[in-house]
């Protein structure tokens, strides 16, 4: 069986920026805020098209988030952006007080998610943003895998009533989905069914998981792939089905292995169908400078490493249940 080909499409941040302009044309309630990073978060397209509905607050993320909370009480739908790290880490209390508790209809889109932003290093890398976001009651937390998913989710969150955090990425993302695919909040995409294990991933790791499944298939393992683009609410039914059908889960995320998708998946599996689970992510550490490719390899975010890890997980499962490989 062949390893599927990597075809690069739009970076998720670019797809977001383009969709936001369309959303702004369609919905005059949409107001966009940025904290002097609009060229990087890609809200600059909206700024150009709708200058009266674009507020560049300067390098002041806390003020931006509380302003969004105020705008949301005026019948407007604010979309505030910065790098995911600054958006979550610098403003946690503002999100808690002004947005999460009163269920403000405000959207927060953090770019440069994970470590794949590359050379800028640890200060810019968000490896704890998901843990922080899922700790905010009432928030939906989303990480799209490609441009199509990002575009669809931008429209989804524009129509959704309530607070949302969505993470986008810096590098071009491999194409996974065809235009027209629907991405509801709380959903997931079972891209491939497996009998021996399922890789649960989001963001850039979804494509790595698909290639890892191909590699594992060459070695005789049947590995499924589930895209959990909605970390919260998590599609618990899909997790339960994957656990039941394949008997083991490998969670892969560009994030700490604590507090993010891995924790959410483990909790869901523990509740509904406990199976062996393993986690690929950053184990109690921060990112560092390097090219995106070098970093992805360094932290094990490659198809090859995921294939090795899922095979090891399957063998562990078999050993535990007394089944000979």
């Amino acid at each position, binding site marked *: 069986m062949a390893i599927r080909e990597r075809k690069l499409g739009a970076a998720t941040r670019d797809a977001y920026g383009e969709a936001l302009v369309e959303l702004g044309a369609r919905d005059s309630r949409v107001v966009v805020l940025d904290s002097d990073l609009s060229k990087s978060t890609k809200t600059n397209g909206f700024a150009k098209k709708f200058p*009266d509905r674009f507020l560049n607050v300067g390098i002041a993320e*806390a003020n931006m988030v509380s302003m969004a*909370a105020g705008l*949301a*009480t*005026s*019948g407007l739908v604010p979309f505030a952006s910065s790098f995911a790290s600054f958006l979550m880490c610098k403003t946690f*209390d*503002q999100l808690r007080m002004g947005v999460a508790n*009163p269920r403000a209809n405000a959207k927060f889109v953090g770019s440069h998610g994970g470590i794949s932003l590359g050379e800028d290093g640890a200060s810019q890398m968000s490896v704890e943003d998901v843990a922080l976001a899922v700790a905010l009651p009432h928030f939906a937390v989303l990480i799209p895998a490609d441009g199509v998913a990002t575009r669809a989710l931008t429209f989804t969150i524009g129509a959704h009533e309530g607070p949302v955090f969505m993470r986008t990425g810096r590098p071009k993302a491999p194409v996974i989905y065809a235009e027209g695919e629907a991405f509801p909040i709380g959903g997931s995409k079972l891209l491939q069914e497996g009998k021996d294990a399922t890789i649960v991933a989001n963001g850039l790791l979804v494509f790595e998981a698909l290639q890892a499944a191909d590699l594992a298939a060459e070695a005789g393992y049947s590995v499924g792939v589930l895209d959990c683009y909605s970390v919260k609410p998590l599609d618990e039914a899909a997790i339960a089905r994957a656990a039941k059908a394949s008997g083991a889960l490998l969670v892969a995320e560009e994030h700490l292995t604590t507090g993010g998708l891995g924790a959410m998946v483990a909790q869901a599996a523990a509740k509904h169908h406990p199976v062996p689970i393993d986690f690929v992510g950053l184990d109690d550490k921060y990112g560092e400078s390097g090219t995106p490719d070098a970093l992805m390899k360094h932290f094990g975010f490659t198809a090859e490493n995921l294939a090795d890890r899922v095979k090891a997980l399957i063998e562990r499962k078999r050993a535990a249940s007394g089944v000979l490989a």
Partner: protein
Amino acid sequence: MSQTAPRVDSPDELRQIAWTLRKDVITMIGQAKSGHPGGSLSAIDIITTLYYNVLKHDPKNPTWDKRDRFILSKGHGCPALYAVLGELGYFSKDLFGTLRQLGSPLQGHPELGKLAGVEASTGSLGQGLSIGVGMAEGARITGSGARVYVLTGDGELDEGQVWEAAMYAGAKGVDNLVAIVDVNRQQLDDTTDHILPLEPLADKWRAFRWHVVDVDGHDFRQILGAFAEASKTKGKPTVILARTTKGRGVSFMEDNLEWHGTAPSAEQIKAACEELEKELTPST
């Protein structure tokens, strides 16, 4: 300006209302056995003036989209806000006795969505002015004509976010925004002079491109004059530095750090209310 709320123009009448409501503040904190009397009493004259004279609002339609907004950024002073809102009929005054009790809409610090008339969740200091800037920009974008008033503490100005908001509003000339600083010169641990001196406070705001009005925060003529001046100020946000006294109106609480966050006993409630009552009786 107001829709169904009574509008009171007389400084003496405003004073009468505010001094009467002080009894509710003391009683509700005493009954709750916890709360912040000092900062409630320093702020209540400003809040009374806002709701009885300045704000365009409708207690019968608290979510009216063209209403002016008031944010109590120093959320711990909420007994003063609750007393005014209850008196105006935003909710039943019977609720005063439930302050800080499980299930009460009168939370220990104000929460948006729990009580009619509360416009923002506050209590984590430093955020109200930013929320107010968002509301003021929202009013500009929607064309609602709403004006936004934010009351902060002076100790609260230690928070860096206040100055982020001040810099934005000054730079963009957000002139439908008014900040009021309750300058009672005390914070929890000590006086503001001992923790982080704030003066020259007017210069600080002017440097951030705000129009500054400096008044006695217990003199109703001056408070009314300050709000009138703010309404006339175009192209700049206005800040009113209201020089106040913590615990104002209750002699044993006035300017006394001990009463930042201490509830009065039954005897102290009685003594305080009697003292306030005397002030209310017109001298012949």
